[in-house]
């Protein structure tokens, strides 16, 4: 294991220190917690948005904290959901009386920990709503199982609900648009190599020199199948087929997010983007806007995910609104 760390047990603490010292104008840390908030939180009259999860997915979620997106990110241990007391601190710190929306990625651990925090917050008289993002089409959608995972599509949920909250919408309204975004967003990923949890010290899985894992999870959870490496365009076709058959995008507008998982050169992400654009054109799906980069990573995993968000006018407005965040800035129209 080759990592730029001091000690596996200190990685999360030191990362948080690094984030808040580097971004001290815009972000602050709640004392004695692993919660990072906007430096101006709570914003009077505004619904507070809280997300978070295990660390190792940077820039998620601290990179999405700021005007127009999240009010707070709760940072867990590597790949491990944060605990309810931490989430509770975040909720309390961002609530200005208008209530708080929790944006949770659909993992048993995250759902349980955030729900417990919500219960505690409600006992303290704070209005809390939650939405659960489950955009990963690699996993079967079923109410009898854990259901779909939440992956990079979560960023669009942050962005769009954050935009509405910034405008002063009610908690109910903000939850509605978050749910609407979730209904319209689908993603799928592929891994070319494993990641290594620092405290584990060993790769989470291993792939042969010629293998890739289709449908990988962002914590290195298994995907759908292992198949031989293929050309970039063919890999994209495999992922896009699953995504496009899941909801009907034809003749609608879509936002695209090409997300590197950690070790994939940006050069390759643009090859992926190119083929996605071609497929969308063939299907008469209009690309509204494309983002290419690292948005929801898995430590040093090589691979990428594709996210497609089906848009209507309201969702477009949400994407377009200004956002002052590190990892998803949208500038003001002048």
């Amino acid at each position, binding site marked *: 294991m080759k990592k730029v760390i001091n000690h596996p047990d200190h990685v999360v603490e030191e990362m948080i220190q690094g984030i808040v010292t580097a971004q001290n104008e815009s972000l602050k840390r709640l004392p004695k917690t692993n919660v990072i908030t906007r430096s101006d939180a709570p914003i009077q009259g505004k619904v507070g948005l809280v997300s978070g999860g295990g660390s190792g997915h940077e820039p998620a979620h601290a990179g999405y904290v700021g005007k127009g997106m999240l009010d707070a990110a709760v940072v867990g241990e590597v790949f491990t959901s944060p605990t309810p007391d931490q989430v509770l601190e975040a909720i309390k710190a961002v609530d200005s009386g208008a209530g708080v929306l929790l944006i949770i990625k659909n993992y048993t651990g995250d759902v349980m920990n955030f729900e417990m925090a919500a219960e505690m917050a409600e006992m303290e008289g704070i209005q809390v709503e939650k939405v659960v993002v489950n955009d990963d089409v690699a996993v*079967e959608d079923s109410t009898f199982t854990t259901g779909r995972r939440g992956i990079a599509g979560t960023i669009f949920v942050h962005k769009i609900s954050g935009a509405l909250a910034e405008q002063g919408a009610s908690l109910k309204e903000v939850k509605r648009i978050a749910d609407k975004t979730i209904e319209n967003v689908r993603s799928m990923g592929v891994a070319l190599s494993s990641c290594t949890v620092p405290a584990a010290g060993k790769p989470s899985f291993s792939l042969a020199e010629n293998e890739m894992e289709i449908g990988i999870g962002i914590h290195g959870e298994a995907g759908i199948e292992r198949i031989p490496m293929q050309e970039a365009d063919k890999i994209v076709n495999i992922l896009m087929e699953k995504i496009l058959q899941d909801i009907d995008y034809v003749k609608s507008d879509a936002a695209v997010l090409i997300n590197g998982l950690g070790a994939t050169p940006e050069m390759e992400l643009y090859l992926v983007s190119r083929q996605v654009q071609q497929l969308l054109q063939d299907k008469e799906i209009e690309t509204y806007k494309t983002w290419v980069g690292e948005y929801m990573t898995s430590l040093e995993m090589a691979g990428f995910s594709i996210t497609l968000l089906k848009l209507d006018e309201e969702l477009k407005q949400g994407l377009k609104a200004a956002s002052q965040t590190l990892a998803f800035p949208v500038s003001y129209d002048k």
Partner: protein
Amino acid sequence: MSIITVEQAIAWMKKINEKMQENKDQLTALDQAIGDGDHGINMARGFEAVVEKIEDTDYDSVSDVFKSAAMTLMAKVGGASGPLYGTAFLKMSVTTQGKEVGSSQFQQAIRAASAGIQSRGQADFGEKTLYDVWYQVADFLEEEVVDQWGGIVEVCQATIEDTREMIATKGRASYLKERSIGKVDPGSMSSFYIFESLADVLDWSYS
């Protein structure tokens, strides 16, 4: 007659911690196979904190020991196992509050813990989770006389082996579908260590 004293409850927690540290890598490896590779790390971090907390505190009752464990696990573990084990010990604390812990209190405590896990995790028996172990243990304690409680270790072992053959439908392993068959559930394994520690500390004989 109390079957578990304050001292024994404390010793139980310490023994669990020992076993979690010893088996940290094994639990993590099991979780790497069908989950995300942090279960051993989570358990080791959680029970280390439990022992730290307990050594800092004076206890009058078994219930309070369980409560400390519950609150610490809840605040230090995270993930799926944190709230589940936190809930389990919290239910045990509530059930035993203001009481000496005799065999029937203990039966009730484990039954309550099992039910707590079930309602928190929404898993049923047979979904290849740690709930399988707690459910079986609760049944076993109700069915057997106290003298035979050493059998708890065999019950856990058998349940773990059962999980190996199951298709996971809850937790991260569920994403693997059929490919989860053949692998032991990491949470069931850590639950095994919890009950093995209990048998050790209470000197229940087992083979």
